[in-house]
């Protein structure tokens, strides 16, 4: 039952999350800076209302999808990941209920770290590079927030002012290496889409004001500080889009979905919803990988636990 509904839920979730990220975190925050524009009425008012509704839909969908993945993994004997993700959901709920007010973020990031390492070790070798770097970038950015929080709580554990910049560098490396998730070379159309997106971003952000707005929206919504030239981000996002396009064309929908969800999660701690997006993406990648011959995840893992066959492979 869960397996049959997993892909429909994942497909709807990725569409709604994309709408939320593009409209709520992107468009509406640009609209409000256009002088004289009234975002409370007319077409723009409708867009703003729809963006908020998309957010309200995306949050429960993400948590439901994660819960379904827990059930699927438990049934398919990938129980270590199932337990870790189940704990993540429980702590996220505890944080929402304020039962774990002060420790929820600490425990959640710790669980993300554990999920990441189990997933990375359990992946087929070539996939480890993008997934490990992506996870490391997220954890480093999250660590920056935790260290700031420790100072706010009167504890200066350690000050690492360079960590945020390193997280961004590793994040760019993760994006650029996502084509390693493909089992075949991308086709010409995928390359054209990726290069087209890269060129579009490079041109669109060539103006100082567009670049400035993109930087601050990227920082506030996704944790991108924008420390590198625009070309770096254009190439990185182009590589990611090319990979997603190729995965979708090879009908590896859940793998493509995982990258989109991880991209929408951003890097660092913003909300339990965005952190859940990353975990969902990691788990979807894990469930779509070929099992390894060695590794932590093999303890109870078998071919049968993969939730969808891969026509490409």
């Amino acid at each position, binding site marked *: 039952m869960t397996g049959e509904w997993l892909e*429909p839920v994942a*497909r*709807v979730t990725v569409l709604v999350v994309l709408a939320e990220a593009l409209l709520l975190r992107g468009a509406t*925050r640009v609209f*409000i*800076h256009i*002088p004289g524009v009234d*975002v409370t009425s007319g077409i723009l008012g409708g867009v703003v209302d729809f963006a*908020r509704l*998309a957010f*309200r*839909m995306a*949050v*429960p*969908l993400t948590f439901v999808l994660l819960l379904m993945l827990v059930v699927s993994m438990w049934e398919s004997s990938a129980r270590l990941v199932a337990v870790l993700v189940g704990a993540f959901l429980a702590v*996220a709920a505890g*944080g*929402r209920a304020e039962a774990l007010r*002060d*420790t929820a*973020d*600490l425990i*959640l990031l*710790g669980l993300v*770290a554990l999920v*990441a*390492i189990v997933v*990375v070790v359990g992946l087929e*070798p*070539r996939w*480890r*590079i993008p997934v*490990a*770097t992506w996870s*490391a970038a997220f*954890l*480093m950015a*999250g660590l920056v*927030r*935790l260290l*700031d929080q*420790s*100072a*706010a*709580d*009167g*504890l200066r*554990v350690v000050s690492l002012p360079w960590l945020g910049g390193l997280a961004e560098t590793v994040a760019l490396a993760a994006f650029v*290496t996502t084509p390693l998730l493909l089992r075949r070379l991308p086709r010409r159309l995928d390359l054209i889409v990726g290069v087209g997106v890269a060129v579009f971003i490079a041109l669109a952000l060539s103006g100082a*004001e567009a670049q*400035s*707005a993109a*930087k*601050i929206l990227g*920082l*506030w919504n996704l944790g991108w500080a924008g420390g590198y030239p625009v070309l770096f981000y254009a190439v990185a996002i182009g590589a990611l889009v090319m990979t997603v396009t190729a995965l979708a064309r090879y009908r590896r929908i859940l793998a493509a979905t995982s990258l989109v969800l991880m991209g929408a999660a951003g890097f660092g701690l*913003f*909300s*339990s*919803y965005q952190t859940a997006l990353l975990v969902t993406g990691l788990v979807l990648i894990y469930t779509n990988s070929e099992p390894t011959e060695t590794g932590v995840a093999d303890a109870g893992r078998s071919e049968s636990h993969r939730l969808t066959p891969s026509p490409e492979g």
Partner: protein
Amino acid sequence: MTGANATMSRRMLVVAVLALAVGLLTQVFALDLAYPQTLSVTVWSSAEDPGVDPDWSGWEAVPSAPVPLTAQQIATPLGGGSTPSLAVQTVHTDGDLVVRVSWSDTTEDNSTARTELFADAVAVQFPADPRSSVPAICMGQADAAVNIWHWRADSQAGAPALPELGDGYVDRYADTSETYYPATASGNPFASDAAVQSLIAGSFGTLTPMDEQTVVGEGRHTGDEWAVVLRRAFAAPSTEHPQFEVGQDIDVAFAVWDGSSDERNGVKSVSQFVRFSISEATIDGQSDSVAAARSLAPNTTVGYIVVGLISGVVLALLLVALIWFGFVIKAFVDND
């Protein structure tokens, strides 16, 4: 359409309808299933009243939260960013919220007597409606206004005294006459003697002084640092001001202007939204050590363990990626 595709479409439709229903329900009842993970600054309860004194001895015992700042890069005039961060300390006492912000600044710019001079300043921004679940970033929006407490060094210093002209002029008028101060006479808020103004904004270009000016404050420049204290009663004087209460979490953002760096208007250093968490936990303002605050900091051990664990995992992940990157390079070389 094949049978499998039709089934997939039907299921997606069912999922979408259910998600829409849940989304509408959470919208109507203002339910948030996720919680924000932004920086949370505890507002401690203090038995001793700090007044608006930046040098109050009790501040030493109040943990200081670092808040990163960046240049304002959305609305013209763009720029700023000369102040990389500020430190925030907060207490509440006798039903008043007291916020102390401090930041490095080697120059004390407290005069705007000439057109090329700009003053140091700081602003603290709250959503006018503290329950707003989607933060109204920047200067708010039409349906989610923000309340801004704006302290300016030049307002605190007051207008410079005019030079004494002596008796050398026949029929000389008194310098204090409003005739010489048209801004004051016309009610220009920038000509006010108050160091702090409470403002409201519903988007860029809509910044307006509140009718009720209930925020007080004082700044002090010592050596290479500004420290400014802002204070207001919990009770909101009107619906356009946020109401505070113990147990409440409220979004808050900051901005700093460095006059020596020609920062004014939109040219400033701004923060992301962080949260004030107004706590019942008390901090002993009489205490002579920071240990009092540290003993209140929650879950110290858990914090150390998790931070250590995450650091280890990050290193492990990077190592795994690096090793496999080496293998991939080797495979390419071997294939050649």
